[in-house]
């Protein structure tokens, strides 16, 4: 019985690999108002655990192991997390490779802002909202905070945002700006140039936190350990209401029967929870041209075959990666050679000539593209100089030296023969 249950546990672990997800909510009603969003996640195999953000039993780590692979923070207004959870615990979770989806709203509390700041995204203050007097939806309550974000303003990264050719998006919430010093933050969706982020009820007496296209609505981050984080300033963005709502501009009466929110939410979650854009390295092979096995050391000027297998996760299965721009670097402190690998069904290969400088080198594939996990593979090899026999043997200009040496050798042979066995003509005959 114990063994059976152990097997069951093992099985459950296998099924929910990377799918254990903790959902933190402000109150339970989010489960109902966002039911479509959660249902699509469940349908894709995610094991969702709902907790309120101030639950005193909250913990991400137990016995040194992470309890979850993903974290959904749908609790913008939380002032203090419950249990052992705090901003440091969440950043640790990200450092440990966990993925986080954060949705905020105009009721944003300090912990969520702090977490964002840690990740290079700055949310505007509480009670502010993204306002756009020229692009608001007709269902707006009067303050022009229910804005329409054009899908043209999406980042050019199909892996993260899916198709850009979707209906306009509805958004109601707080704005963000990206830290310009943080190169890892991607502006997935920005507002139009007439938008700004400020409190709708106060006159603008200060420069707004975010204006125009700098106003981020969706920001993404892939940390150096491939943990993924998405920040969204609008919790309503994921609601059933916005998923099914029609979009009609309050200014131009352009109408769309359904918002693009559901499409974008699907793409974003597929990306952030690592269902898309995940690469892994298979076999790496290198050898001298015409040989099968790698030598102990290469010699300068060798022709070398290098191949690396790369696979991409697609619909839960590992398929050959179809990218065409994977580059190989041959590095000794600095790259000596950088060349694009040819892709034949997921096997990337190239034949190239080693440089004429000896030393310890690395074959290095450092593939870093928007939306994909960072792929990094190095193989260290040593390259030695030519052996004395491998240099050019008969240089025409050096013929005097060769001939002098050989003539000397021949001379010694002949001379020793003559010197030892020379027979003088008998002198007696003459005498």
């Amino acid at each position, binding site marked *: 019985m114990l063994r059976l249950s152990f097997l069951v546990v093992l099985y459950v672990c296998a099924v929910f690999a990377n799918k254990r997800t903790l959902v933190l909510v402000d*109150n*339970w*009603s989010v489960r*109902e108002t966002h*039911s*479509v969003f959660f*249902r699509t996640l469940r349908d894709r195999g995610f094991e969702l655990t709902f907790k309120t953000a101030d639950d005193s039993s909250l913990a991400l780590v137990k016995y040194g192991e992470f309890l979850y692979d993903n974290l959904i923070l749908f609790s913008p207004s939380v002032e203090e997390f419950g249990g052992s959870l705090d901003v440091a615990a969440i950043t640790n979770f990200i450092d440990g490779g966990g993925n986080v989806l954060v949705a905020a709203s105009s009721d944003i509390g300090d912990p969520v802002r702090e977490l964002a700041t840690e990740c290079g995204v700055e949310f505007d203050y509480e009670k502010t909202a993204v*306002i*756009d*007097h*020229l692009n608001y939806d007709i269902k707006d309550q*009067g303050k*022009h905070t229910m804005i329409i974000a054009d899908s043209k303003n999406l980042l050019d990264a199909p892996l993260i945002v899916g198709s850009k050719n979707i209906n306009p998006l509805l958004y109601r919430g707080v704005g963000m700006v990206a830290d310009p010093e943080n*190169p890892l933050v991607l502006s997935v969706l920005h507002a139009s*140039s*007439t938008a700004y982020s400020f409190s*709708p009820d106060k*006159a*603008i007496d200060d420069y707004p936190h975010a*204006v*125009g296209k700098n106003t981020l609505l969706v920001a993404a981050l892939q940390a150096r350990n491939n943990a993924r984080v998405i920040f969204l300033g609008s919790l309503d963005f994921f*609601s*059933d*209401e916005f998923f099914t709502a029609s979009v009609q501009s309050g*200014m131009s009466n352009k109408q769309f029967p359904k918002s693009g929110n559901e499409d974008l939410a699907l793409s974003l979650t597929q990306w952030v929870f690592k269902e898309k854009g995940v690469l892994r390295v298979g076999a790496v092979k290198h050898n001298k041209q015409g040989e099968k096995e790698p030598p102990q050391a290469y010699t300068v000027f060798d022709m070398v075959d290098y191949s690396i297998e790369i696979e991409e996760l697609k619909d839960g299965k590992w398929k050959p990666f179809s990218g065409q*721009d994977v*580059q190989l*670097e041959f590095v000794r402190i600095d790259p*000596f*050679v*950088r*060349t*694009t690998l040819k892709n034949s069904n997921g096997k990337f290969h190239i034949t190239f*000539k080693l*440089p*004429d400088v000896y030393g310890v080198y690395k074959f290095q594939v450092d593939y*870093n*593209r*928007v939306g994909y996990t960072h792929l990094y593979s190095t193989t260290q090899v040593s390259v030695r100089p030519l052996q004395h*026999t491998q240099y050019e043997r008969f*240089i*025409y*200009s050096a*013929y*005097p030296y060769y*001939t002098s040496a*050989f*003539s000397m*050798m*021949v*001379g*010694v*042979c002949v001379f*020793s*023969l*003559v010197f*030892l*066995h*020379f*027979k003088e003509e008998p002198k007696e005959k003459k005498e």
Partner: protein
Amino acid sequence: MYISVTPILYLFAVAVVGQALTPSTFLTTIDQDRLKKVFKSSTPYTDLPTVHYSILGLKLLGDTSINNQEICSTITKLVDNKSVASLYHASAAAKGVGNCKFPVGDAQKVLSDAIKDSVPVADIFYAFSALKNLGLQVDNAKVTSALTEALKKDDSPQSAGYGFFVASQLTGDTKKIFDSIEDVVAQADEVDDKYLQFEGGLYTTALVVDGAYKLAAKEKKAPTMSDDKVVKFANYFLSRKHVHQLRAAYQLVSVIKTLTDNQFHIPVAITLASPVAVTSSSPNVKVQVTNLLGGSIDSLTVTADSAKHISSEAIVLSKKPFTAKDSSTYELNFMQAKPVRGFYKIIISAKPSKEDKKLLGLTGAEVEVKVTTQVSIENVEIGVADKDQTTAARTTKVQYPGKASTVFEADYHQKIIVKFQLKDKADGTKMSAHQTFLKLTNQKTNQEIIFVADAASNKFDLDIGSSAGQFGHLSGKYSMELIIGDAVIENPFSWALGEVSLNFPEGQTPKDKGLDRYAKKPEIKHLFREPEKRPAAVVSTVFTFLVLSPVLILVLLWMKIGVNVSNFPMSLSGVGFHLCLAAIFGLYYLYWVELNMFQTVRYLGLLALPTFIFGNRLLSGIASKRKGEKKV
């Protein structure tokens, strides 16, 4: 005593909590269509609960597009007449379809046996409802005792809800269960002072309220729920009208239906039916006064008790009657009160012509509207002035929506001044807008730089030198756009004012941020060292012959003096020594061409031994021979 207290409580409730509680929305036809879609989305049906909830949901919404025959055969196919739950769903769906018979087998026994003490309330509910739906016999006494037993054990709201449903169909004394409504309702949690819900969410809340009213109808007595609680429940249900889960959606429709047609409490929804914005061209505020399904309520007089400007708290009208437009829509010309632009809160009450205790939430309903206005922009002047203001700025006037014909030029020790006035078109007074931004767009890089106007004076004072960093020190042409927007401005605009050419000092452009970290890197081809230039072939040919000449001379001279080797001893050592010597030189050649040092030393060792022996014997042979000759 009891009777006299209730009205006082009632009044108290209205006075204190009655404010702003009235539902401000109802299940509109759009909502109903969406719910119909939810119910239909699960076709073709593969399990009975889905059939049950979607058929009953569609029936409640009055959808007639159901193919009864097909559903009936689906039920027949899916039903498992040994399982209580399956029989319950099948019988409920069949009853919903009407005139649908499916093989029930020994349902009477299966279901009757399921009702016993010590089973959960839900199971009793399933079995009992199935019996009722199928028109089979029910042992009322047994059900009553089992139910009382089960409810004692489990006092969760959901069980109570099921209990209410069972009790509502029981013949016999159910007063005890009816009396428990008050306790159950007391368990509900209040959210935001506006909603009342049970822990289990929408389904449980709807189940309890629906069950309570069903039971009340049977008992012919109003359930013990205060009016504001009913309204709060109604508010909660309406806030969940975007539900997508079938079971909860069905229960939601069911409870809303119950709340519109029961004998005791009918919450009234007062909904804004016109856009939030009220303008001089559409001056009417329209409200709909309906029940929760949008049905009209007879002969009401609707009054705007007051209308208050939200920020200044000025009251612009009070006790203004709405005129009836049709049976449920009422309208009021709000602009007659000459309200200034801004947000207003209108408090509305409705009064039936003859008092009806059933109707709840008739007073204190709030709707929010905003009075918007057209704005005009006047006296727009654009100019470039020196920073130290030694010279007066030359300014150009621009008329909206025109564009300045000349390109302004400014460098880093000048500033651009844009002045304008905003006027309310309605009364010609000056106004300011929430958003008064000046946007400069670099025509080459499309980079946008936005400046905020001084709100009080509507003036931009743009010091180019000090904001050079924002421009990235990029000289060139920029297009200027003025963005005016506000929640109360009907015609926000983004107006292209003209173009300005900015000049920044050279050499200050910030260095490139480096390569895009995600881009493909440039290829690197290793540059091999070029071989050194070699001397001409003639030189080496000449020297080769020069080097060879001593050997040639030696051979020539030897030939001249008549050299011979006839002393050569035809012995092994003689031949061996010379062969070995030649082989050593041959080995040197191989060493140079292909062998490495270790191989060479090994071969050399092999050759050295015979060379030594042969050489020793040869030389000693020669020496002894010479000695012999001398002796002779």
